[in-house]
């Protein structure tokens, strides 16, 4: 499922990333999001906010739709 469709305060593992847009891919990997990374979805409104390692990032729905995750 996409990170965009996930529930707040749940922990997910990144399964894959959409590779259709290289700029988006650069942005996602710059945040340390790669297959196998653990993310915690903290907030969905007004933007998706998640924690990866000990950092928090806000991303828009477009980037949120490019990260495929699964529950632990």
């Amino acid at each position: 499922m996409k990170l965009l469709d996930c529930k707040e305060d749940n922990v997910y593992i990144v399964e894959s990333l959409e590779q259709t847009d290289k700029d988006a891919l650069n942005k996602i990997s710059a945040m340390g999001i790669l297959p196998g990374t653990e993310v915690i979805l903290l907030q969905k409104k007004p933007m998706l906010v998640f924690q990866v390692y000990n950092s928090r990032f806000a991303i828009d729905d477009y980037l949120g739709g490019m990260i495929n995750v699964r529950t632990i």
Partner: protein
Amino acid sequence: MTGYKKYKVLLVGNPNVGKSALFYRLSGKYVSVSNYPGTTVDITTGRSRVGVHHEIEFIDTPGFYNFMTITEEERVTKKLLLEASPDVVLHVIDAKNIERMLPLTLQLIDAGFPVILVLNMFDELKHRGIEINIAHLEHDLGIPVVSTVATKGIGLENLVSRIISVCEKRYNFQKCSVEHPDNIEKLIENINDLLNGDYKLSKKMMATLLLQNDPDVCEMIIDEKNYELIKNIVENNDFNKLRLDIAKSYHENSKNFLSEHIIRKGTYTESSFKYLLDKITMHPIGGLIGVILILYFGFYKFVGGIGAGILVDFIESEIFEGYINPQVDKFFDSLMGGTIFFDLFAGEYGIITLGLRYGIAIVLPVVFTFFLLFAILEDSGYLVRLSMLLDKFLKKIGLSGRSVIPLVLGLGCGTMATVVTRTLETIRERYIVTFLLALTIPCSAQLGVILGLLGGSFIHLMVWFVAILIVFLFAGAVLNRYVKGNQASFFMEIPPLRMPILGNVVVKTLSRLKWYAFEVIPIFIYISALIWVGKITKIFDVLVWLLSYPARWAGLPDKMGEIFLYGFFRRDFGAAGLYDLQSSLTVTQIIVSAVVLTLFVPCVAQFSVMIKERGMKDAVLIFLFIIPFAFMYGIVLNYVLKFWGV
């Protein structure tokens, strides 16, 4: 300076790792801020002497995630790495985020730089129950690893002594090797064999970046005799997939290095007050309340009350009107009294009595207080939250959260904000922001005068605000529909809210003020001279006469023609002129005038920067659209307000 060995040290790292705090601790008082050539990106340089033999130049670079750069700031850091030949690269990381940041350390090692890994904010590890075995990590990476707490000055002596030993080539680097999957290693080897030139990056890193189709490195090898062969290898592989595989490989390697050296002993809980404040500033409604509080206390009370009120009153009335202007008038009267040249320097529109007075007494205090507020918001981490809160709304007018920075800066100086649009990712976004800045965003000097005119009645102020907001939304929606190009996606790291660091705030404010003093104040002086020429040649009389017609159609007195004309030379010239005229105007006339003046063409300085940034054609088109639009809107508003009986 002779007798000192000079060394150059680059500080590199992700945003929000305390890099600037470390920089100010290391570089002491000799700090200067300059733009990287061809960009608006600030590079801060500082010099520090160590003992009697060494002088180190520290260069603080913009936030950098990895070599595959996204923003212009990141590209500047990459270019500095490629061109500056540093004696040391300090990779500053947030110690608690070592898993996310070590991959960049490995890339820097792979690139062949003399790297020192700085584990900053080391004290936060303890609160989070994390331990890092530094000695073992240093052994495995083969580079110096130092722990610091920059904000408290902890670990700096050790760091400086490590820097000196690396600069003097006394440190024995035994750099670790990063191993990629076999298919990638094979491709790297193939490109390695074809590269002949000398580069500041290792051939391995050159090959790694070429495989990811990095445009900067592709450009560097254009003169290689095997260029076509290398290009073939790059083009025959799926570089998007390779990009992901290589990023993954650096993360895997980093994980392996860290697996033995990190010990986790517990979980972290933030203090309840900090947690609550953080939640509120990121919540849609809490964030909105925050915006209102900042608008009221920051803009209305601080910039409006202290900057535009107390400071302007003091410098304008006490210093200029009380002392400088009478002396200047007297001096030039004795020198060239009765001639037309008297008016060039003194009198109502003189270079000193009007140009310098407006620049220094009216605009500078407002701009100073605004820049100070902006630096505090920037350093506290609040601007990032504002970007996050407004991203969805800004998307509707073709922008992203990143546009918040030039738009808010436009409330200080539209000229500077137009230059700052360069930091936006797409040309489309830069165009829309430039347009909105020219049309709808009042600069701080103009805002100061408008607050003075309408601030007495909250309802009148709101009518002006809503009238401008409608134009902002309407223009944004139309531009979003018709300007070509794709919308940029948006991500931003959200740092914890923190107390602004005084050194950062002072340096940022002063560097912006310096820019303003050198770039904008001279324009005030040229304008005074231009007004003088316009008046003696009667050209102004013709233009004022022409502008008085649309003013009349909007229900305004003829005199407003003159105010609109001066408004082009400096937006605040016009606003200040309106201030003088207010006693003879009705409430509707004051509101309509304030709205038309806000919308009416950008000032000369902003217009010249628009030409530079967006090109002559686009700048002129924006200009030609704004003139009739501002008046037509004024005419409609006049009827609407009359209909409502304001």
